């Protein structure tokens, strides 16, 4: 695209080129460093980030070597008074308490524990509660580590039903991550079997899983995906029709309408923000009075997608392409008794795969990245990932490692899309040069 000559000159490395490569690499490094640092921070523990450890231990061999073998313990249970465990859940069956000993830990935890002046073997106190009578056995487990004074949020997982909560925090902060996973295998009223197992994968994915749960990223991602799909369907329908009308049909006022379309490209979003917000309220009120149902517009997908169906950028991009299709084709089709709509669907669209792909990719990215409008009007039901992330970065303010994990989660779908379609991107931008 950049180089138009059909025959390429043979590449010869000159000293000047080394300089060019140096400069280009510097640019590439600057472009990539924030992403790299984001990923690095996302793999750190809170302690590592706080103490300015530059390279996370999760990316060294230490946590993965000399992992202890799995240990199975039969834990006998005794009923306890809920008052002994602050904030224990109300249970259908009596609350049960049991003790497990963790004999071995991995290297990073040994360091951490040494700092916290706790040494293995660690006593783990497990509380089992049955909050859901429909699920057989005990379904919530709390646990505290280390003689009752150091306390940990649970990675105890029950075989049936799964729950973990954080009643207290531990002094050895990374136990949860580096230490053994406790899995409850046999779930009886008088005993259960706890297996201690070491999972290297948890060490790498821990922050991501935690961020994923803390901020309900699953919801956000699902919302954003749905919004993207709806917007794409709308944008494609609306802009294909409009682009075709501009490219291949003759009608009075064509230039005027086209100028109006063009002019809307100039409008800054912030100018339209207030009236559109007020308009959304008016539309909501109107729909409520007609259909007697609330939130048909505000806090629904409608307000987040429909206003963006008329994408002027897409209309121009497609018009440009449609106009290049030779009119002989249409004349021939006309003789065969083919109308505009059929011609559009059967001839024009199959020929326009490349620009349609550009439209899909661009609008997909814009919808995924949209922030300001959803921030104002999106309800919890349809909160997109960008707004979700901005809330999470607020809540996780001090926990930078989790924040970065959240940012990574938000970026990854876009990166995947980008790597597969990057040609459409750069060429779409280059040919239209629109949208800043």
């Amino acid at each position, binding site marked *: 695209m950049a180089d138009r000559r059909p025959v390429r000159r043979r590449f010869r490395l000159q000293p000047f*080129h080394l300089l*060019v490569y140096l400069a280009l690499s510097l640019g590439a490094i600057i472009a990539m460093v924030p992403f790299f640092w984001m990923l690095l*921070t996302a793999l750190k523990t809170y302690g590592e980030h706080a103490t300015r450890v530059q390279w996370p231990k999760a990316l060294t061999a230490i946590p993965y070597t000399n992992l202890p073998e799995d240990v199975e313990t039969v834990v006998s249970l005794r009923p306890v008074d809920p008052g002994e465990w602050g904030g224990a859940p109300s249970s259908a069956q009596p609350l049960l308490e049991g003790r497990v000993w963790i004999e071995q830990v991995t290297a990073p935890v040994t360091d951490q524990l040494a700092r916290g002046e706790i040494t293995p073997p660690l006593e783990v106190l497990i509380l089992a509660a049955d909050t859901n009578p429909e699920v057989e056995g005990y379904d919530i487990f709390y646990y505290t580590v280390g003689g009752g004074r150091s306390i940990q949020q649970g990675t105890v997982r029950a075989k049936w039903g799964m729950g973990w909560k954080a009643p207290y925090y531990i002094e050895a902060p990374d136990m949860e991550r580096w230490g053994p996973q406790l899995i409850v295998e046999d779930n009886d009223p008088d005993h259960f079997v706890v297996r201690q197992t070491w999972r290297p994968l948890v060490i790498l994915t821990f922050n991501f899983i935690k961020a994923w749960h803390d901020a309900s990223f699953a919801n956000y991602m699902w919302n954003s995906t749905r919004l993207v799909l709806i917007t794409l369907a709308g944008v494609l329908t609306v802009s294909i029709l409009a682009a075709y009308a501009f490219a291949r*049909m003759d009608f009075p006022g064509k230039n005027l309408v086209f100028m109006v379309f063009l002019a809307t490209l100039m409008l*800054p979003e912030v100018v339209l923000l207030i009236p559109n917000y007020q308009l959304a309220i008016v539309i909501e009120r109107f729909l409520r009075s007609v259909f007697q149902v609330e939130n048909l517009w505000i806090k629904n997908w409608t307000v987040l997608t429909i206003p963006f169906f008329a994408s002027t950028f897409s209309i121009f991009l497609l018009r440009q392409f449609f106009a290049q299709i030779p009119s002989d084709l249409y004349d021939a089709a006309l003789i065969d008794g083919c109308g505009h709509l059929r011609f559009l669907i059967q001839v024009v669209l199959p020929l326009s795969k490349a620009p349609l792909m550009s439209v899909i990719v661009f609008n997909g990215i814009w919808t995924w990245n949209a922030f300001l409008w959803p921030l104002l009007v999106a309800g919890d039901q349809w909160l997109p990932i960008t707004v979700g992330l901005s809330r999470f970065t607020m809540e996780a303010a001090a926990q930078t490692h989790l924040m*970065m994990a959240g940012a990574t989660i938000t970026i990854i779908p876009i*990166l995947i899309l980008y790597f597969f379609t990057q040609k459409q991107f*750069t060429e779409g931008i280059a040919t239209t*040069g629109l949208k800043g």
Partner: protein
Amino acid sequence: MSDAVLAEIPPPQAKKEKPLSKRRRREASQAYLFLAPALVILFTFNILPIGYAFYISLHRWRAVRGSFIGLENYLQLLGSPLNAVFVVAGIGALIAAYYLWRTALEQLDRRRAALRLAVAVLLIVGGLTLILGVDSMIRAAAEERRTQEYLLSILLTVFYSAGTVPFQLIFSFLLANMLFMNIRGKSFFRMIFFLPYITPTVATAAVWRAVAFEPRRGLINNLLMSLGVAQGNLPQWTFEAKGIVVLLGQWLGVDLPSWVLNSPLLSGPSLAMIAVCIYNIWVFTGYNTVIFLAGLGSISREYYDAAKIDGAGRWQAMRHITLPLVSPTTYFITLMGIIGTFKAINHIYIMTQTVGLGGPQDTTTTAAIFIFKQFREGNRWGVASAASFLLLGIILLLTWVQNRVAEGRVHYG
């Protein structure tokens, strides 16, 4: 149509026209049918709101409509009406001077001299009126806080433009030229450079704020420390409200006079604003590079070949062929960049999340952020609408001015 009328019209034409116009009418109605969804949505959400914004701006409007107050919101933003008149008159005189200059160039000698004199007078008068107006606005601003905020936000936006657009241009032009050379790995570099632009602003701005600009553990300050540039007095980046001139003065140990310290113009943009600028440059350089690449691609090879035959070196080819012929792209990028800084909200929102929107101490409250703050935090919809209308005016004016300037300098071709 009766036969008598038909007889008066030349028959062949009539025969031809009738079915054609019928077909055309059908096509026109079909075209509007095709356009209908786009038109309805565009009208409802892009065109109607402009009028609505104006309507809101004429009212005292706090979530619900209050009383009609005419242009009071605008006057609140701009200070006293007299100042606004001064500024508008000043701008008008400058525009008039520009037109006179244009006509002067086309005139004969004697009239040209007279016209040039008129131009000079207009320029002086217009400039003086403008300066007087702006000056009294700023002085009035000291008394009225809201006025100050708006005018200040315009000034900050100017800082923001000046701190981003030139750097974007230089970096992306260099990168594009390097990528345009006959080298390997072109598309790889292009892909990497473009990455910051397509990733969600919310995520990347959070990354920059939390791991790059963070004062104690951030990447940049770590780097500064290990390079030995700063030790105890680490720059506070997004938390720093002091202007860079003031900070530089402190760093060099120079005592600055109080009129520099207290002037928002002379003390320069705050370090927080610089941080926002750096982020902006990081995001848009790659995007502009791609546009520049397209611009370079459209320059005919023949010019370079001809220059080579004439013995022109790389630098001369750059100076006399590339620069002038790529100027439409340069112009486009400049315009989009400046308008972009007037629209900027998202990344400033995220980058100042911890210190309060537009903070610290309002030093990153650009024009768009000002509107958003009035709207969301101040709940003054009327004022916010008036500000957004003024912003629209500024953007249109900028586009117009740049169009005029570009007319003489940009080589299309």
